[in-house]
């Protein structure tokens, strides 16, 4: 079970990182969302994986660790605020810069540069 869990965390992390490395703002937003899932799962698992052990007193024999749960709960809400902030920032960037590139400008076209330095158009 644990193996399966960490594989999922790894896959989500990798997908999130890959998307964060893209050049357009929307991909970054999606990537960050994905990363926050991964981070939340990662943190949550520090309380180990328990089945049928919700930390409500009197409902089971052995309780899951409530501390990581409480931390992750606020992390989820703050993560949402962060995603919202980034997405609005992306919109503002598009409105002010006229594009949705992370770098704020088109990447220089190296082929064109090489040609112009050789005197070709």
């Amino acid at each position, binding site marked *: 079970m644990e193996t399966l869990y960490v594989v999922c965390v790894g896959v989500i992390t990798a997908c999130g990182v890959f998307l964060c490395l893209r050049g357009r703002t929307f991909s970054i937003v999606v990537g960050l969302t994905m990363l926050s899932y991964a981070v939340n799962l990662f943190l949550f698992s520090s309380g180990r994986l328990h089945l049928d052990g919700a930390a409500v007193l009197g409902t089971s024999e052995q309780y899951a*660790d409530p501390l990581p749960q409480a931390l992750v709960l606020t992390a989820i809400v703050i993560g949402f605020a962060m995603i919202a902030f980034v997405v609005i*920032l992306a919109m503002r960037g598009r409105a002010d810069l006229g594009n949705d590139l992370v770098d704020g400008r088109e990447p220089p076209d190296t082929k064109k540069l090489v040609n112009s330095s050789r005197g070709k158009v």
Partner: protein
Amino acid sequence: MSLFWISVIMMLGVIVPVLTERYGRTVNTLFTMLAPAIALAYIGSLIPAVLAGEVITETFEWIPAAGLVLSMRLDGLALMFALLILGIGLLIIFYARYYLSASEAAGRFYAYLILFMTAMLSIVLANNVLQLWMAWEVTSISSFLLISFWSAKTESRKGARMALTVTGAGGLALLAGLLLIGDIVGSYNLEVILASGDLIREHMLYPVVLILVLLGAFTKSAQFPFHFWLPHAMAAPTPVSAYLHSATMVKAGIFLLARFYPVLNGTDMWFLIVTMAGLVTLVLGAYVALFKHDLKGLLAYSTVSHLGLIVLLLGLDTQLAAVAALFHIMNHAVFKASLFMAAGIIDHETGTRDMRQLSGLWRFMPHTATLAMVAAASMAGVPLLNGFLSKEMFFAESINQETLGFLSWMVPVLATLAGIFAVAYSLRFIHDVFFNGEPEGLPKSPHEPPRFMKIPVEILIALCLIVGMFPAFVVGDLLASASTAVLRTELPYYSLSIWHGFNIPLLMSIIAIVGGIVVYAVRRHLFRFQAQFAESDAKLVFEGMVQWLVNAATRVDEALSNGSLQRYVAALLTFAILLTAVPLLNHNVTLTHPDNQPVTFVEVVAAVLLCLSAIATVIYHRKRALALVTLSVVGLIVSVAFARFSAPDLALTQLAVEVAAVILLILALYFLPKNTRTESSPSRVARDIGIAAAIGGIVATINYAFITQPLDSISDFYLANSKTGGGGTNAVNVILVDFRGLDTLGEILVLGIAALGIFKLLADIKLSMISANERGLPWSEDKHPPILVMISQSLLPLALLVSFYIFLRGHNMPGGGFIAGLITSIALIQQYIAHGVDWIKPRLTINYQSLIAWGVLIAAFTGIASWAFGVPFMTTWFDYFDIPLIGEIELASALVFDLGVYLTVVGATLLILANLGKLTSVHRPTAEE
């Protein structure tokens, strides 16, 4: 009174001139002199003790845990310097009263001056080398402020910058050197360091330490090849030059050499480097001084030359040389300060310092001329003056040493040569200015300065004469005490008398005086010879080097940072991989707690679905709407996973957030391009896949490593006290609102700040509205379908009821303020979607900003309220009440706290989503709103 008080009083003295400036110049000056005068009086009261051989040490434990100790120490050397700094400093302050014109900011000037004085005093009184270094740096900075006092002039700014760059760089070298010394000795205490000379000299790193410390000293004392900054620092007001270049600043470097003399001296390396630097500086400075037409330029190079002399003496291998060096430090400070002041008077009363214009001033200012002549004679080394005595000692030591082996004869020869030039330039200072025909083309008609302006000069000249005639009586004890501090042994025999009989040093003095007169007489030929060389301006060379450095730095910077955030992220992640992977490579975890939970079919399906939809999101990330769908699948499975692994609160929160996030992203997508063009090159994609895979792998590994370890959690405390201490059975909620309530308060604050930031970002945003979707089809005309309107409207009360229920039961069952707040927000957003902003606006008149504010206030107030009951912040209270018809219920103050959380979450979520939604309508938020 203690030595620390000196620092405190002097630091207070820095603000005094600024405060008293408005009461007129004289009052300002007198009040400014107060702090140094008190310090001088106190140091004066300690003179007998120090001269008797006592070393006064005081220690103040500043941060003992970090080993930081402030410590002061007054020995003979420190006493000598402290007297020079304070004594000459007081005279300078007095002199500046008459030098600065009424329109100049005297308060600021005095403040800089006292700051500088404080720093100098702290250098000489420090008993901790780090403390010494701090003060050292403050002298660099405050001298920068002083030199650039007339900041409107280019040369002032450039001169100040040059001085700061050179001495500041030297200061960094010194810091490195001092740290190494501290490392070798194991202490930064000066006493300990001074006692471990052998340890340092025999250490492998001794050459490095020596070079670093010498770099610091030589840059400060303007030794060749770092001498070039000093003449350019002459752009400062003359009182500053008189102070910086006689008793302080440049003498700080000399002080450092003298201070560390017992530790670093005694090796061939020390003799060679220090002697050579001193010798070259001595001759070069004396030679160049002769050709300077500017009075202060002449004095500047003469200062360079005399500093070379002192350094040379410290580098020679006899003990008497060190005594001579200390004696010359005093003498040079006295006569050079008076000469600078005299030059300032001449400049002040004639309007120029150019010796080609100045001539025959004797007729106009005989009094000043007499003073200047005595001082210049002292500089030239004429008998009966103090300069003569130390110069004789210098000549004597130049013969007695064998520092340069077979070439040791060079030292006396070059010393005599420098003596010849010294006489020549001193003669020029007198003859060219006060005699030699009539003045021509002076900006002002010359006359004697105000009476009081001459007093400081007279005091110094009197010192020159008294020391020159009765040396042993006046300074004998002080010199002996300072020499003991430097040599740390029994003092060798020396005699401070004027007449030692006919001997070689006297012959050298005679050669110097006669030779100097001859050189001055034939100066025309020398000037013609010198004129053949193109004059190189050190300022231009220096500026060129600085420019080159800036260009080089810019090139490196541009190569590293080209403005591409994408590149930075990739670099950052690669670095993170390296940082985490390396320890993992060397780490073997024994898996004590391997997979112990069986996997069911459902879980495998969910995991596969999760991974597939994550990968699908990546593959389809250019089709943005599709990516959003697959992304929400990931989010849903994550919330299911939380439910499965015994975290119902998390599952509920994740589910609610998921809905809000998807609404948010869909709204954002309305304004952003619907598709992403392919623009990453295949190699870039391959690189990114590599980075992503590596990070995913590392994260999974670390996760597996700790998830399989036995759990040793502090949560047992929370579980045990949840009901009895917090009054709730849902431990997660009790942690949120009670045990870790302060964290939660901080978190809702962050939430509120994020929402307000978004509100500000959305104000007056200029967005292009897209009238058609990506396939060119127009948006649906039916914006608010009736079925959606009807269902959402009827769902609203139910949703609110559910959220109320979730809120109330939160303390004992899964739920709470966060989840209830999200549910309420979604229910309201649902109305926005169904009816549109126009319909909602008149019906829902809640100000979301104030909702956030109220939420945070209520939560904070619940915390503060506990003070009223005399218990610590955020202590909760609960009790059980029996109410008819309803039965027993529990009331807890944590519920009020949770209400604050609830309100903040509702306010923040709605502020974000509603304002984003409003962009599509005419009710756009504006900056004024």
